[in-house]
């Protein structure tokens, strides 16, 4: 059983290394995600953000502008996930609920 686990680890590693040979070079400015227009002629999102963040929101830090303005819905869902985690911890480990359960 242990041998199968080790072999599967090595197999996954070799497969990922084979896949990494087709990735673009590191720091390549001409890669597909870094261009201004995509293959079908629409503007690429990150280039649009770099050019228009200061004009739209008066904010020099582009990451903040993306996080709270352009993609605010994403951040809202993420915050709901954090709040759900807090609620789950509260429900699993709270003391008052346990006392109530014991007295019953």
């Amino acid at each position, binding site marked *: 059983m242990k041998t199968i686990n080790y072999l599967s680890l090595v197999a996954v590693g070799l497969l990922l290394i084979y896949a990494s040979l087709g990735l673009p070079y590191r720091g390549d400015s001409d890669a597909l995600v870094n261009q201004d227009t995509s293959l079908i002629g629409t503007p690429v999102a990150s280039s649009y953000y770099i050019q228009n963040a200061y004009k739209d929101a008066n904010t020099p830090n*582009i990451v903040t502008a993306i996080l709270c303005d352009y993609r605010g819905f994403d951040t809202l869902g993420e915050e709901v996930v*954090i709040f759900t985690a807090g609620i789950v911890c509260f429900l699993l480990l709270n003391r008052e609920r346990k006392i109530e359960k014991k007295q019953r």
Partner: protein
Amino acid sequence: MLDFIAGHYDYWFIILLLIIGLYGMIMKKNLVKKLIGMTIFQASIILFYISGAIKADATVPILTDSISNADTANYINPLPHALMLTAIVVGVATVGVAFAILIQLYNRYKTLNEQELIERMK
């Protein structure tokens, strides 16, 4: 050949980290060790996204007056940064839920070893 290695060596380090995290998750018997392996796995995924965002001879994504933003090759791609920023904070919240479950398991079965846990659950 040397150019190819210089362009790809960090992907191989990231794959090595991913394999280490996967090894911790499937080979270790202690549940806390499995959780540490999951943290390493998650870190390697975040590192892969950040590593794909860099551009040669570009600066950090905070606009200054002296560097023009009309040419987008002057600033690093900011979109993966924003996505991975949320992923890190979601990571600590999910780890908190895992801690709550581990504490409840220990209170009930008095062990965190996987095999003993399965035996005592029967």
